[in-house]
C-alpha cells in the first residue's frame, strides 16, 4: 500500500533525539505569571478580576467575549498585581493579567463531573468552551467553534493530529507515550459529539512505538483506528493531514468540516478529556525546551503564564550562547528577541539554537530551479508569488493562488539562493486578506 501522505514537503534534520526520551516533568513557577487576554484567534477575553484580587489556581480570570473567543484561567494562587500590556512571543505588547504567585498553589474546587454519555451535545461543547480550550498545535483557534459545525451529522472523520512533523518538537510524542488513555479519552468525547464519525489517530511513522501503543490500546474500540502517515514536513498541517488520511483536499476558503472532518492536536484532545471527564479547565501544556544551546533539553508540563526564563533555568540554563531563540518549532515558530515572555496556550516549544541559518545565508538571485514549487504542499509556485509580492502586484498574486499558501516555510527552507520566499508571500497574504475583509 502506498504510504498515507501528500505531494511536496521536505525532510529537514529533525533534532528530536535531544529530548524525545525525557519524560514529562512538571515545572512549578516561582515568579509572576502573565496571562495575555488574547491567546487565541478571535476576540480577546475580558478580565473578570481586578488589581489586588486574590485568585486561586483554576479560577477564571478573564471571560470569553462572544462566540469566537476563549476564557483564561489562573494557574497558581496569588494576587492580581496588574492588568497591563506585556510583551508576548510575537514581539507585540498585549493586554495581560499579571498574577503574583504566592507559592501555595491552592486550587479551586471543581464542580462534580457528569459522565459524557449523560450530557447533550450542547452541554459538552459548552464545557469545552468554558474550559478555555483552543487549538494547541499553534493556531489557537477556539476548539468549541470547531466542535460546532453547521451539520454535525455530516462529520465522518475526527482526526487527532499526532503527526508532530515540526523538527525538534517532542511534546506531543511524550503525551502520547505517557498519557495515551487521556488522548483516547478525549477522542471518545469528540466522537460522542459526532455520532456518524470515525476517530483516526494520525501518527507519523517515525514514532513506531506510539503507533504500536495506540493500536494496542484501541484494539477494542470499533470507532477508533490508528493511521501511520509518512514522516515528512508538513504532514501535520491540517489540510495535508486530512488529505493523507481521507484523500479529500480542501483549499484555503474551506473548513475541514466542509469535507466532513474535524482535526485536533494531541494536547487539545487531552485538554478536552480533562475538561469533560475531570471538569478541569485548560491550565497547562507540554513545552519542549530544546536546542543545542540548552544544557539539558526536556519536556515540561508548564502552567500557562510561566515566564520563559524559568523554563530555561529548569532545563539547566544555556550550555552555549544561543544565537537564536524560537518559540515553537524551527519551521513555523516565532523568533524571539527576549526571553521575558510568558508561556501561552499555543506554545509548543522553546528552541534555542547556537547557529542562525537565516542570518548566515545571504539571499542571492533566484535561479529558477523550481525546488520551491516541488516542495510546496499547496502546489503553488512560490518563486513567482514572491516576485509578485515584492512588486506589490496583488492582482497576479491572487490569480496565481497566493492565498492558498499555508506559510509552512518549505520554500524558504529549500531555496538554494536562500531567498526569504515564505516571508514575502506571508506579508502579501496578510495585506490581501485584510483588504478582502475590509471590502466585506
Amino acid at each position, binding site marked *: 500500500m502506498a504510504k498515507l501522505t*501528500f*505531494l511536496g514537503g*521536505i525532510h*529537514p534534520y529533525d533534532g528530536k533525539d535531544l529530548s524525545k526520551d525525557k519524560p514529562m516533568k512538571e515545572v512549578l513557577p516561582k515568579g509572576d505569571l502573565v496571562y495575555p487576554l488574547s491567546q487565541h484567534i478571535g476576540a480577546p477575553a475580558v478580565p473578570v478580576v481586578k488589581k489586588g484580587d486574590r485568585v486561586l489556581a483554576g479560577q477564571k480570570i478573564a471571560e470569553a467575549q462572544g462566540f469566537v473567543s476563549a476564557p483564561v484561567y489562573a494557574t497558581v494562587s496569588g494576587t492580581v498585581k496588574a492588568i497591563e500590556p506585556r510583551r508576548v512571543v510575537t514581539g507585540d505588547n498585549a493586554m495581560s493579567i499579571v498574577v503574583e504567585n504566592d507559592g501555595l498553589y491552592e486550587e479551586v474546587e471543581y464542580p462534580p463531573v457528569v459522565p459524557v454519555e449523560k450530557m447533550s451535545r450542547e452541554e459538552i461543547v459548552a464545557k469545552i468552551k468554558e474550559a478555555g480550550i483552543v487549538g494547541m498545535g499553534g493556531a489557537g483557534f477556539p476548539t468549541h467553534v470547531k466542535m460546532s459545525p453547521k451539520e454535525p451529522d455530516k462529520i465522518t472523520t475526527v482526526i487527532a493530529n499526532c503527526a508532530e512533523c515540526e*523538527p525538534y518538537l517532542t511534546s506531543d510524542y511524550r503525551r502520547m507515550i505517557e498519557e495515551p488513555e487521556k488522548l483516547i479519552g478525549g477522542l471518545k468525547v469528540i466522537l460522542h459529539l459526532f455520532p456518524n464519525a470515525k476517530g483516526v489517530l494520525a501518527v507519523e511513522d517515525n514514532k513506531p512505538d506510539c503507533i504500536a501503543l495506540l493500536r494496542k490500546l484501541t484494539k477494542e474500540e470499533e470507532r477508533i483506528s490508528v493511521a501511520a502517515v509518512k514522516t515528512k514536513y508538513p504532514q501535520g498541517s491540517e*489540510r*495535508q493531514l486530512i*488529505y493523507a488520511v481521507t484523500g479529500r*483536499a*480542501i*483549499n484555503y476558503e*474551506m473548513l475541514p468540516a466542509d469535507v466532513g472532518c474535524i482535526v485536533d492536536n494531541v494536547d487539545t484532545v487531552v485538554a478536552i478529556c480533562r475538561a469533560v471527564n475531570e471538569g478541569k479547565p485548560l491550565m497547562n501544556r507540554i513545552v519542549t525546551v530544546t536546542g543545542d544551546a540548552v544544557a539539558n533539553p526536556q519536556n515540561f508540563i508548564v502552567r500557562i503564564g510561566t515566564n520563559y526564563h524559568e523554563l530555561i533555568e529548569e532545563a539547566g540554563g544555556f550550555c552555549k550562547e*544561543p*544565537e*537564536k*531563540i*524560537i518559540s515553537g518549532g*524551527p*519551521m*513555523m*515558530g516565532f*523568533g*524571539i*528577541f*527576549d*526571553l*521575558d515572555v510568558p508561556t501561552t496556550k499555543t506554545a509548543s516549544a522553546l528552541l534555542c*539554537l547556537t547557529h*542562525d*541559518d*537565516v*542570518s548566515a545565508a545571504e539571499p*542571492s*538571485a533566484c*535561479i*529558477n*530551479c*523550481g525546488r520551491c*514549487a516541488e516542495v510546496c*504542499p*499547496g*502546489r*503553488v*509556485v512560490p*518563486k*513567482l508569488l514572491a516576485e509578485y509580492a515584492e512588486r506589490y502586484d496583488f492582482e497576479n498574486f491572487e490569480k496565481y493562488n497566493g492565498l*492558498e499558501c499555508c*506559510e509552512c*516555510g*518549505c520554500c*524558504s*527552507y*529549500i*531555496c*538554494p*539562493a536562500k531567498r*526569504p520566499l*515564505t*516571508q514575502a508571500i*506571508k506579508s502579501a497574504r496578510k495585506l490581501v486578506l485584510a483588504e478582502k475583509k475590509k471590502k466585506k
Partner: protein
Amino acid sequence: MSDLRKVSSNPHIRAKDTTAKIMLTVVVALLPATLFGIYNFGLRALLIIAISVATTVLTEYLFEKICKKKNTTGDFSAVVTGLLLALNLPVSVPWWIPVIGGVFAILVVKMLFGGLGQNFMNPALAGRCFLLLSFPSIMTNFECDAYTGATPLAAIRAGEGVMVRDMIIGRTAGTIGETSMIAIVIGACILILAGVIDLKVPGSYLASFAVFVALFATLSGRTVSAPYISAQLAGGGLMLGAFFMATDYVTRPVTKKGQYVFGIFLGFLTAVFRIFGASAEGVSYAIIIGNLLVPLIEKATMPKCFGRGGERS
C-alpha cells in the same frame, strides 16, 4: 530588553544546498566531456577552454566592478557558461573567438539583462550562435590534427555512412565537448543522481526529436533506419544540448507540464533545422528559440493548487 537576539520570519532553518554548490556540480558533471575533448583534440582544446572560462569570469567581475555592483563570480555560474561555450567550439578556432563569444554571452545576454536568473536565453548558446552568424567559416571548420573528414552529421546529410560506435565513444570530428555520447551521459547521470536535473526536459526532447526526425526524414524522401536515428541522436550537439543546456534552470520553464512542452518543442525545432535547414546542425538555434517561448509556456502550464485539483499531480 535584557538579552536582545536575532529574530526573523519563519522558517528558521535552511537546507544546505546553495547556488554555488549546484553550479559546481554542473562543472563536475561536465568534466568527463571536457577531459574527453582534451584527450580527443589535444592540448589546444585545453587552451580554448581556459581562455573561454577566463573571459566569462573576468567579464562578469569587471562589469560588476565598473557598475559598482556586488561581485557574484563566487556563484560559479560564469564558469559554467565559459565551459559550455568552449565545449561548443571547434578546436581550430583562433584565440579571440572564445573571447568574443564569452564577452557577448556574459555582457550582453546575462549582465545587461540583470545578471544571473534574468537572462532570457542560455548565455553560452547565445554566445555560440552569435559567433556562428558572425564567423561562419571559422565556426564550421572542424578540420584539425586529429580529424580531417566531415562531422558525422554532415556525413549523414551527404548520404554517407557513419560509424555509430565511434560516435558513441566520441572518436569523431565536432566541437570540443560534443563528440562523446558516453562522456556526456556519464555527466548527465551525475546531475540526475545529485538531484540537479531530472529527465523531464532531456527525456521529452530526445524522444520527440527521434519521432520528428524520422517523420521529416521520411517526408524528404530518405530511408529511415535504426542506425540513422541512432546517428542523429548521438551526433552533433544534441546530447550536450539536451542534458546540459536545455536543462539550464533560468531558461527552461519552471512548471512540470511546461518542461514537457518545452522538451517536445525543442525536439520538433531541432528536427526541422537538421532536416530542412541550411546546416546539418540545429540544436543551438532550437534551444535559444525555445528559451524565448519559456514565459509563454509557463503561463499556459501553471499548475493547479492543492484543494483545487492540484493535490494529485
